[in-house]
């Protein structure tokens, strides 16, 4: 049995690199330091694997990998406007080749940010992005806000590796002051009354995770959660603001008013009582360094890019009073890498169209869901992603009505509907490569075991398809 340490977990944007795996007979049998999602991946990766398949007479038939690659290349070479989609759960090296393939084909290449943090990227392009790497969170931040993000469900170790429960260099000593005690009692009374008033109107979760007065007195790190439901993270929060669905924009803008010492004429905004908002703004202004982590709660609900713009502007404005940062919680372990590689190769982070012979970018026009809903494409290659499970029905209908190539280690709804299935090796377990953590720190994924026979790294698959396409097109 072999133990390998400092293994990088290829699941979410946390990209934890302190995992330890035990390998016996070429298979991983135990893993330490991973969260339950990471553990599930390391212990189950070998179970359900794809074989190379091509659909003949309506049925998926197993073929040789060479035949599958050839068929894939044929489909793409014949297509007028193919889509190359996915890229977020594979290595940068594979993405580089994918971009070269898209340029060769004159098609559109897009990554999963298009249905995730694409709006965040659009907002960043409008207003900027005061950001950081996660070590700063651990060392310096004494206020952590999660808005529309529930790390407990998607970035499990974020809280104790990087944010609210981590330990860092600059600790503020807990030092109680008599004045603080008095103030805390008064503030608690005011907020309890306010939340009673709101609760009389509609059922909401209590706004405080723990005993309120304790929270107000504590001088160490505070945790605030804003969400439409009381998530598991909210249970641990010092303040929980339950925002009405689709009303985040109003709440963010109201916060901006308060941060600039403005006044609000109403009792509540988006279902949150103003007294509670004022208390949280007070915490924000008086913190030493704060951070706003946000998730798809903001990108996917009404307002989309405007929600993020408001959040970024709030962060920028807080920098006039204290130090504040913002970070989108990226879901897949290398979606950040996909944006990074796309940007250095084409200038743009996603939704890149090559049909003119040079990169062209216009989300809404060149993003895949829109292209599919308008019926403008005639073939797709999907890699390291599962759009049949993740795209709205109308887009999926269009995608499966055209030839569909799926590159994936395991069966998914997308591979079930594909015309060509190519089995890949798992990046980070069976194939090495570079991935970018959600704060843009690049980390090298390791190969710890051999892939099953017939499964090859994504980078090699895409390269072979590219070579075959070139051979077909140039004769």
């Amino acid at each position, binding site marked *: 049995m072999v133990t390998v340490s400092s293994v990088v977990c290829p699941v979410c944007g946390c990209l934890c690199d302190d995992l330890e795996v035990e390998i016996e007979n070429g298979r991983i049998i135990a893993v330490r330091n991973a969260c339950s999602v990471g553990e599930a991946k390391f212990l189950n990766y070998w179970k359900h694997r794809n074989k190379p398949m091509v659909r003949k007479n309506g049925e998926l038939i197993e073929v040789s990998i060479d035949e599958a690659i050839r068929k894939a290349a044929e489909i793409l070479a014949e297509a007028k406007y193919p889509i190359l989609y996915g890229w977020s759960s594979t290595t940068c090296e594979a993405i580089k080749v994918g971009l070269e393939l898209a*340029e060769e084909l004159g098609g559109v290449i897009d990554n999963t940010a298009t249905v995730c943090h694409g709006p965040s990227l659009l907002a960043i392009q409008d207003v900027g992005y005061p950001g950081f*790497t996660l070590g700063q969170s651990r060392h310096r931040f004494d206020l952590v806000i999660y808005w529309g993000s529930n790390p407990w469900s998607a970035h499990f170790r974020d809280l104790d590796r990087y944010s609210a429960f981590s330990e860092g260099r600059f600790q503020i000593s807990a030092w109680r002051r008599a004045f603080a005690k008095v103030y805390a009692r008064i503030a608690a009374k005011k907020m309890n009354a306010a939340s009673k008033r709101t609760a009389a109107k509609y059922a909401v979760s209590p706004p405080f995770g723990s005993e309120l007065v304790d929270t107000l007195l504590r001088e160490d790190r505070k945790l605030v959660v804003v969400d439409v439901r009381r998530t598991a993270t909210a249970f641990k929060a010092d303040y929980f603001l339950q925002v009405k669905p689709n009303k985040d924009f109003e709440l963010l803008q109201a916060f901006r008013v308060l941060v600039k010492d403005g006044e609000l004429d109403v009792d509540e905004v988006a279902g949150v009582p103003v007294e509670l908002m004022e208390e949280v703004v007070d915490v924000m202004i008086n913190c030493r360094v704060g951070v706003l982590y946000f998730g798809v709660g903001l990108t996917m609900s009404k307002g989309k890019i405007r929600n993020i713009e408001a959040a970024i502007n709030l962060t920028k404005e807080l920098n006039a009073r204290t130090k504040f940062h913002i970070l989108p919680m990226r879901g897949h372990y290398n979606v950040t890498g996909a944006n990074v590689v796309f940007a250095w190769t084409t200038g743009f982070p996603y939704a890149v169209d090559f049909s003119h012979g040079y990169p062209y970018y216009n989300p809404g026009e060149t993003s895949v869901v829109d292209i599919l809903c308008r019926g403008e494409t005639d073939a797709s290659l999907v890699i390291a992603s599962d759009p049949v499970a993740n795209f709205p029905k109308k887009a999926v209908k269009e995608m499966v009505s055209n030839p569909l190539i799926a590159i994936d280690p395991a069966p998914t709804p997308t591979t079930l509907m594909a015309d060509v299935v190519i089995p890949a090796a798992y990046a980070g377990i069976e194939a090495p490569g570079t991935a970018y953590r959600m704060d843009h720190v690049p980390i090298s994924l390791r190969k710890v075991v051999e892939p099953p026979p017939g499964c090859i790294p994504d980078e090699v698959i895409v390269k072979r398809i590219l070579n075959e396409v070139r051979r077909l097109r140039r004769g």
Partner: protein
Amino acid sequence: MSKALLIKNGIVYDPLNGIDGERMDIAVKNGVIVEDVSGKDIEVIDASGMIVMPGGVDIHAHIAGSEVDAGRLLRPEDHIKDVEPKTPYTRSGVGYSVPSTWTTGYRYVRMGYTTVMNPSMPPLEARHTHEELNDTPIIDKATYPLLGDSWFVLEFLSRDMIEECAAFVAWMIKATKGYAIKLVNPGGLETWGFGGNVESIDDQVPYFNITPREIIRGLCKVNKLLNLPHTIHVHTNNLGKPGNYLTAIRTMDCVKDLADGERAIHVTHCQFSSFKGVDWATMESGADAIARYVNMHDHVTIDMGQVIFTDTTTMTADGPFQYGLHLLTGNKWVNHDVETETSSGIVPFRYRPKSIVHAVQWCIGLELALLIKEPWKVFVSTDHPNGGPFFKYPDVISWLMSEKARKTVMKKMRKAALKRTTLPSIDREYTFYEVAIATRAGPAKALGLENKGHLGVGAIADIAIYAINPENVNPSRDYKLIRNAFSRAAYTIKSGEIVVKDGKVVGYAQGKTYWVDVEISDEAMETIKMLGEVFKQYYTVEFENYPIPEDYLAASHRIPRKSGI
């Protein structure tokens, strides 16, 4: 392997070998310059009536890495106006001030540049820099890790543990495959972690019991101990602040006693550090004071940081400065605080000739180059893209060579601006020899690149041929011809391969990434092992995962050095 080349009859400028406009043949074989070539399979280039120079060497241009890529991502509007379609020899891409990596390589070689130094690499994100450099075609490149605010450096230097610091720096340079020690607003970036900044080189950095002066001196000593090919490369404190010329002079002066008769410090994009005045209303050029100091002291080199009047993108590791620029302009702002090490910031910026401050800045860059007497001390740069895009270097060359060209630009400026600089009274014009020093020989020498920047036997065959005849052309009058010729090299040869003909990319050569491997003793390695044990307290990545293996670089060029530790 590339075949043999014979460049016949060109008018050669090779300052490192003292050649000033001589008609000579240059022979190339197997990628290097040789005495002569003979045999059948020789490609002959007729360079009659054309200038032959070593390939350009850019000592400071932000072309790769997390900061640059964030700038690319931030500015789709910058790209949409400047696209590069795919050709049989080139990948597609975009410009303008933050071009995509493929386009960057092609645009450099089109100008006859063959070596570019990327000056700002956050060590934690070094992989990003190298991935992008791998995808920057044809040119040779290297990068400087940012070490001036690294917690380990600050802690060692505050306790005067120079040798331990040197061990750490040697390890860092190897781990990040870097080339030189870079300092940006030393001490200021750590202070920015809590939203502050330092205002002089003697300010205390909070929590670390050290001053910028001590950081600069400490790293200068480390640099000498490690025998690195370049000096410390410094972006001064107080960048972009009226009155900061004093900070620049004090920075240069604070390592004077460490020089030992050699170069000790390179102050980069010096224009941004050469402001006199107390506020924007009274801001004026301090270039004469800087030039006076540099003229009297031989331990300093600088590069210009020339401003170009255009819409460009500022990006530096100087987080607090960039935030200030955001407040000044209201433009969108990206900030990136890198744990334990450094920061960065990006703000789009437009330089306008009618702005008094911008006009003075434009003058300062040129004043520095023209008032500093020795051309081996001052090099051409725009701090791309901070002052302007690198493909405007031919404009800068034309301004250096022609007073008339300068006057044409100065006509667009307000009289109030011109009163604040000495440029209108300067009539010096660079010769082709001096241009060759400022854009090739000088930077190569300052960087310690022994086989570059010259055309002597044994040099790497990086050669630029420009379609301009010094015997027929009066650069002072015909500056537009100069500018055009330097924008489109008649030929660019990289490692013996013809990669550009008539300003178009027609070939390919594998550019190498240069990095320094300093040999340290076993005792010094003990320091590194000790750091490995506390690494996790400082960083959020494992010690084992931090260093980059050599095969990560697409084409590695390792430079071994023996050190004093």
